[in-house]
């Protein structure tokens, strides 16, 4: 039994089909959701986080049905951590105060245990020293880490992270990678991001979502392999390249199309594979 099972899940907003009969299942490990804006990433994450309900299709979280009884839903929510895409911070709360508030919402009723747990998750995200600072005085990346800390309360079995790397610098992203891979051992981590290098750094498995459907579901290595032999370096990009750009060495990195004369094949990156997979869609509406 997987932690998260989605069967033919559909969600429509007005006339837009945000998700179209999506079949996915996740278990322990870190999975990345890649896709352009409007692909349905946030909708998918919100359904898994039980923030919204699917219009059609089956959802099973930790073996329970979130659309069933209230007791089942609460049971799921007790083992779930969610980092929404946007989060506000009331008034003049400190980082500690904010996480403590959420801890009470997550039923940490014993004060001593609650304070210890809040300290623990703040240390995990590297904000131990800043716990008593007002959130309004923290930088964007630090605020994002506060939000991440509350998602980690109670060591959830499902962790849903919507754009967790926004505002993080490379060192912090490396820290996040360490934290998440430690969690991936016993937790189903699902994260969405715009940046392909985040997926490469953080995830073992990747799902590419576009237009509400799944275009790819497999390991990062497999996705990269789909671009083998279709990426090269040359002095002049050909006319039918999908996308190309000038590298630091002066040569052009070309993805797709036919190789012009004098081109040398090069190792594809995850970004190349992603661009090729989504083709024109990805280029027109970049992630």
């Amino acid at each position: 039994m997987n932690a998260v099972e989605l069967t033919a899940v559909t969600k429509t907003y007005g006339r837009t089909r945000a998700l179209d009969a999506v079949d996915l299942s996740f278990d322990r490990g870190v999975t990345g959701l890649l896709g352009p804006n409007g692909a349905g990433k946030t909708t998918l994450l919100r359904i898994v986080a039980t923030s919204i309900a699917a219009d059609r299709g089956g959802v099973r979280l930790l073996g329970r049905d979130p659309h069933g009884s209230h007791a089942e839903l609460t049971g799921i929510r007790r083992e779930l951590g969610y980092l929404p895409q946007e989060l506000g911070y009331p008034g003049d709360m400190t980082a500690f105060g904010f996480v403590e508030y959420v801890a009470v919402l997550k039923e940490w009723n014993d004060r001593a245990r609650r304070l210890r747990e809040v300290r623990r998750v703040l240390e995990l995200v590297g904000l131990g020293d800043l716990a008593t600072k007002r959130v309004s005085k923290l930088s964007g990346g630090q605020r994002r880490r506060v939000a991440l800390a509350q998602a980690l309360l109670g060591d959830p079995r499902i962790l849903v992270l919507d754009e967790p790397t926004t505002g993080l610098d490379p060192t912090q992203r490396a820290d996040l990678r360490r934290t998440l891979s430690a969690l991936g051992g016993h937790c189903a981590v699902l994260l969405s991001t715009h940046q392909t290098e985040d997926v490469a750094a953080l995830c073992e498995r990747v799902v590419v979502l576009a237009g509400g459907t799944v275009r790819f579901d497999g390991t990062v290595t497999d996705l990269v392999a789909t671009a083998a032999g279709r990426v090269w370096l040359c002095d002049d990009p050909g006319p039918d390249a999908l996308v190309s750009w000038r590298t630091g060495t002066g040569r052009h990195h070309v993805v797709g199309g036919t190789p012009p004369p004098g081109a040398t094949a090069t190792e594809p990156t995850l970004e190349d594979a992603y661009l090729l997979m989504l083709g024109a869609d990805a280029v027109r509406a970049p992630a």
Partner: protein
Amino acid sequence: MTTTWHVHDDLLADYVAGRLDAIVGASVEQHVARCAECRASTTPLVDPLLLARGWDAVRDTVQSPAFPLPVRLARRCGLPEPTAVLLAAASSLRTAWVVGSFLALTFAALAVVLAGGQLLAPFLLVAPLVPVIGVAAAYGHHQDPLETLVVTAPYGRTRLILLRTLAVLASVLPFTVLLGLFLPGPAWLAAAWLGPAVALVPTLLALSSFVGPRVGVAVVALGWSAVVLFSLRGLPATWPVEATQQLVYLVLAAVSLVVLAARSSRDRRMGAVL
């Protein structure tokens, strides 16, 4: 001047152990108060477990500070600690709001007293609306910044809103009843305004489940104001709270509760009706 002389280790140990007499002790004490090095030498002489216990308590207080006054009072009356944490963050219980409502009510009562009991409208207008506005504020400001987390947390959004509603009512109603006792006129007037107050709150909640708290509170406030103002056109001052009208309010409250219950069972899927 003092830098070259420091307290001898044995002397310091005696000082900490309380074995020195007052004179020598005072001497050592005055020096330690001015010398960082001797202060540092004192550290290993004091029970580390005691010091650690002290720091733990300081750290806890610094990280999770004391509640605001209204919440502290509620704690003394038996409010559970986790609930207090939730309420402490709610703006409706901020001292400023409580003070503001008390002032509004006092002025309204004063106006009535000064008018000699002929004009009850100010009090009748304000008294039921204060809790209604407080409850609307219990939804947090527009788009509660923690909305998404509150929805997906085990505690439950509906439960949180009801908690804040109760807190608002508990903080405001007793004071209003007290003020009501000072109003000139028939004795039942002191509690008569409770009828509309108690009826308007579920009305607000029911409305808010359809159109949100902002529109809901505007509709309720305007509606009630219209009723009170209408009574000024030649009807007796107590008209808004007379028996027939109270019955109407009761029916309104009952209908609102039925609506809330119906929506609650229909929207059970995500558990958040309000």
